[in-house]
């Protein structure tokens, strides 16, 4: 891509707030239920029905706003956003138009080793619509089925300023935002379940240019990977068009995962006139500062703070600290393990290495992990004490992962205890040296490989369980005693 251009990105994220019940009625928000079984006349927009606001939605919105360094409004209200669509039962969505609950915030991402602030314009509460399942094929005409289970689920829409440059920064923003939302405990953030959704606004301009280029809004981004690919594609499309002298049109486009391209939704788009007006059925909100301070006090440590702490208190590199603070469960596991064995670097290595690999292979989240932080800590202590070698540890770890058994038990059952007894090792070394006088000569003759041969023999004799460091030392001493 021509580096004369910079790619300007803004992101609109919808996060489902994790309440038990919907925003305006007592129906469950649980994912995966049979169609239309979590629906009542209120969330189905029946005649005469009225909304009553779930207090927890406001609480979680305030929490999110504080976690994103926003101003929490003193006064805000709901508005009606009017449009017709089969997944919108009232034919208006309750949202917040001109007075959102949160404004002027930011989060920080790491770009090429330095920190960058991405500003957040606003975050507001709104209700979700139902789900559409499109039917039909080439032979049968198209129609659509509507499931209203999701109608009325509370959402927080978080809108960034167009501060990101390129797909990498966009991805970093999403990762950080997701981590913040998880740490604040406001959403499950599962893109695959739709509890975290993202639309990207992309434009390009010549470097140094102040004005923004024509933008496209890209929808249907189902993963962070799709987000990156779509931005790359769209930016390239824009640049090609500009270089060819074509005019770009502001429009909404959809990402086609299969074809890996964006496609215009222009034919389906009419200029939406949402005719916003204040919702008369819901009294406005006055958010007292005491409430805000209560929420602030209840916020746990946020990812950035945790990252700093890991670097400061444990001397971890920033990269490691960033990975360990992607989810609160991960950080919690780390903290617990380190509290017990004090070796932060080791914990970090194992968590980011073998543990991460095995979790991914088995499609597991860390909270499904069968072993505990305490067990990991003990395993590390055993390595430290020399009871097991680093190499043994790998198979012990894997066994621990699969069975959740204590490391001590695994070692015992599989007879994997490392041999560190110097007398015992000394006897074995002696035996081997006696058996290979020729190699002893080679060693004294300066052949380096001879030493390795002896180590290998010791390992073979002890089925790999000899403590390598001790073997090396004893072997050297023994050979050097022999010599001269």
């Amino acid at each position, binding site marked *: 891509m021509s580096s004369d251009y910079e790619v300007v990105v803004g992101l609109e994220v919808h996060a489902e707030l994790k*309440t038990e019940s919907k925003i305006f009625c007592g*129906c469950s928000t649980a994912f995966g239920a049979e*169609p239309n079984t*979590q629906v009542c006349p209120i969330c189905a927009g029946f005649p005469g029905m009225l909304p009553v*606001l779930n207090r*927890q939605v406001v609480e979680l919105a305030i929490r999110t706003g504080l976690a994103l360094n926003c101003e929490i409004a003193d006064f805000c209200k709901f508005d009606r956003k009017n449009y017709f669509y089969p997944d919108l039962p009232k034919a208006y969505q309750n949202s917040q138009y001109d007075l959102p609950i949160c404004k002027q915030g930011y989060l920080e991402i790491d770009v090429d080793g330095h920190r960058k602030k991405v500003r957040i314009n606003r975050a507001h509460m709104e209700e979700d619509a139902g789900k559409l399942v499109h039917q*039909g094929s080439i032979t049968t005409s*198209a129609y659509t089925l509507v499931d209203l289970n999701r109608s009325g689920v509370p959402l927080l829409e978080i809108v960034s300023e167009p501060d990101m440059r390129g797909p990498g920064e966009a991805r970093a923003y999403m990762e950080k935002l997701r981590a913040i939302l998880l740490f604040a405990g406001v959403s499950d953030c599962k893109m695959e379940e739709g509890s975290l959704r993202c639309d990207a606004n992309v434009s390009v301009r010549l470097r140094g240019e102040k004005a923004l280029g024509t933008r496209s809004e890209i929808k249907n981004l189902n993963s962070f990977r799709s987000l990156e690919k779509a931005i790359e594609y769209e930016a390239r499309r824009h640049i090609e068009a500009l270089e060819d002298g074509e005019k770009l049109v502001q429009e909404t486009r959809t990402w086609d995962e299969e074809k890996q391209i964006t496609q215009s939704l222009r034919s389906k788009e009419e200029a939406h006139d949402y005719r916003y007006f204040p919702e008369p059925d819901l*009294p406005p909100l006055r958010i007292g500062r005491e409430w805000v301070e209560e929420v602030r006090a209840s916020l746990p440590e946020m990812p950035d703070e945790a990252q700093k702490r890991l670097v400061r208190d444990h001397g971890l590199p920033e990269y490691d600290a960033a990975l360990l603070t992607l989810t609160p469960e991960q950080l919690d596991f780390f903290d617990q393990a380190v509290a017990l064995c004090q070796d932060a670097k080791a914990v970090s290595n194992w968590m980011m290495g073998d543990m991460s690999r095995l979790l991914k292979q088995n499609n597991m989240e860390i909270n499904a992990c069968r072993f505990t932080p305490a067990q990991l800590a003990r395993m590390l202590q055993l390595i430290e004490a020399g009871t097991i070698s680093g190499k043994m540890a790998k198979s012990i770890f894997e066994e621990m992962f699969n069975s959740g058994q204590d490391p001590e038990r695994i070692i015992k059952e599989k007879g994997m205890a490392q041999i560190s007894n110097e007398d015992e090792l000394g006897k074995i070394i002696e035996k081997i040296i006696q058996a290979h006088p020729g190699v002893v000569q080679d060693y004294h003759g300066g052949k380096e490989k001879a030493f390795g041969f002896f180590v290998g023999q010791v390992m073979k004799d002890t089925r790999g369980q000899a403590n390598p460091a001790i073997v090396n030392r004893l072997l050297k001493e023994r050979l050097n005693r022999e010599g001269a």
Partner: protein
Amino acid sequence: MALSLAEVEHVALLARLTLSENEKELFAQQLGAILEYVDKLRELPTDDIEPLSHILPVFNVFREDHCRPSPSREETMANAALVEDKQYRVPRII
């Protein structure tokens, strides 16, 4: 002054109302007359007046985050004209 046909058609589309040619003409004229009447409001200087959207001095009306069982699907969907596979069926979305 009557509304133009284009304006009537635009509003009818926003409101999802199919109108016959007669209705369009009639509404163009009637709505025009009504709008002329409401234009009376221009006589009042209101630049410094706060709009009154909520008549009661009430704020922060909430319910607790408790789940209650939803009505059965049969009851909820009893009034629907076209249901397929436990969902509402609608024709193609263009």
